[in-house]
């Protein structure tokens, strides 16, 4: 009986802790937004962060996009040709990418690459007292360090997602048209008549913006909240990836349900 009670107690404890952290995280997020005015005026700071989160993520995003697109082409053709609709493979690849895989996979990769980098960097700055030093120099560390990274993430994510979708479509084209031999004209024309700008592409962009906000905020918060030890920072980076991924997938479901309504 006692172990069961203890487990329940632990679970209850964890839930309360989780809620407390959520509240703390929400306050942190809102505060970062409030002090963003200063960091947006110092735009070179934001540009520098766009370089480190966005530009440096390009390679992993583009290579992954190519492979995902190619696999979609293969799998899509494999199934569609059974019903004689192999020419719809373009539609399948494009819609899958633009609506879902573009924003979601980009967000997951972003969380893994840029998110962990942000968490580790801020966690380390906290551990080596750089953030304290800034505070003592009468400079708001959140305005100077956290807010620019937030805006950089929000700006980079849709760009990366759009590139992912584009390169993925190209990958699908390579496999379906060049490799397998689906008719190029049919591939593109079917795609163009079935992918709607407003319903599909714009919705994809909206999704990637939301994911950008989510992933970047989580990465920043975990870094800022990390205990200033080696173990603390390492656990924080793990939490960034796990929490970002789960949040992105949950948000994806909610957004998709809302958009397809």
């Amino acid at each position, binding site marked *: 009986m006692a172990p069961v009670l203890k487990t329940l107690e632990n679970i209850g404890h964890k839930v309360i802790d989780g809620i407390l952290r959520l509240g703390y995280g929400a306050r942190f997020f809102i505060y970062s937004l409030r002090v963003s005015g200063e960091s947006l005026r110092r735009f*070179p700071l934001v*540009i*520098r962060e*766009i*370089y480190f989160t*966005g*530009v440096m993520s*390009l390679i992993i995003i583009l290579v992954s996009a190519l492979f995902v697109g190619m696999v979609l082409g293969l799998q899509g053709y494999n199934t569609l040709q059974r019903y004689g609709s192999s020419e719809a493979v373009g539609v399948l690849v*494009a819609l899958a990418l*633009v609506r879902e895989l573009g924003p979601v996979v980009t967000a997951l990769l972003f969380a893994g690459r840029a998110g962990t980098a942000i968490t580790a960097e801020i966690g380390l700055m906290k551990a080596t007292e750089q953030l304290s030093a800034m505070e003592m120099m009468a400079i708001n560390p959140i305005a100077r360090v956290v807010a620019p990274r937030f805006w950089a993430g929000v*700006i*980079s994510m*849709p*760009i*990366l997602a*759009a*590139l992912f*979708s*584009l390169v993925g*479509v190209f990958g699908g084209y390579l496999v379906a048209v060049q490799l397998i031999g689906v008719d190029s004209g049919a591939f*593109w024309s079917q*795609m*163009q*008549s*079935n*992918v*709607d*700008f407003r319903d*599909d*592409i714009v919705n994809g*962009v909206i999704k990637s913006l939301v994911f950008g906000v989510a992933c970047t905020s989580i990465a920043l918060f975990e870094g800022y909240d990390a205990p200033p030890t080696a173990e603390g920072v390492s656990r924080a980076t793990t939490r960034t990836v796990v929490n970002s991924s789960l949040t992105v997938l949950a948000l994806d479901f909610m957004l998709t349900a809302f958009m397809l309504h």
Partner: protein
Amino acid sequence: MERSTIDVWVGIFVAIGFLALLALAMKVGNLTSSSIGDTYTVSAYFENVGGLKVRAPVKSAGVVVGRVNNISFDDDKKEALVTLNIDTRYHFDKETNASILTAGLLGEQYVGLDAGGDTAMLKNGDKIKMTQGAVVLEKLISQFLYNKASEGSDKTEKKAD
């Protein structure tokens, strides 16, 4: 890293992001084909709209001249009321026939417009009087069977004479 190098790379990054979005809109999506120009609205009653969807194309002679704006049910007439947005570049007369056709054998449905002979042209808010509803597969089959059956009975009648 030099400040200017970072600026260049970020500039390139944002630029290709924008271009990617544009490319997606143009090559992958239907932005170029969706009517960005001015349109005027006409409506038509159909017995059966079949699988027609909003934003389906309105074609004449196979060319897209507009989009389906709205599909609703008229409770008085017990028929479907479809409103169409037609590009202002194209004019159709009041005796135009609107029918719901299928692209290919099992493809998407669209509204086809066949010009009539009237001198007066359709204006914004007018109604198309001559319409033909979608072909419902079940009715087609039952009609075929009925025809086959009556053909058979005609033959037996003739034999009987």
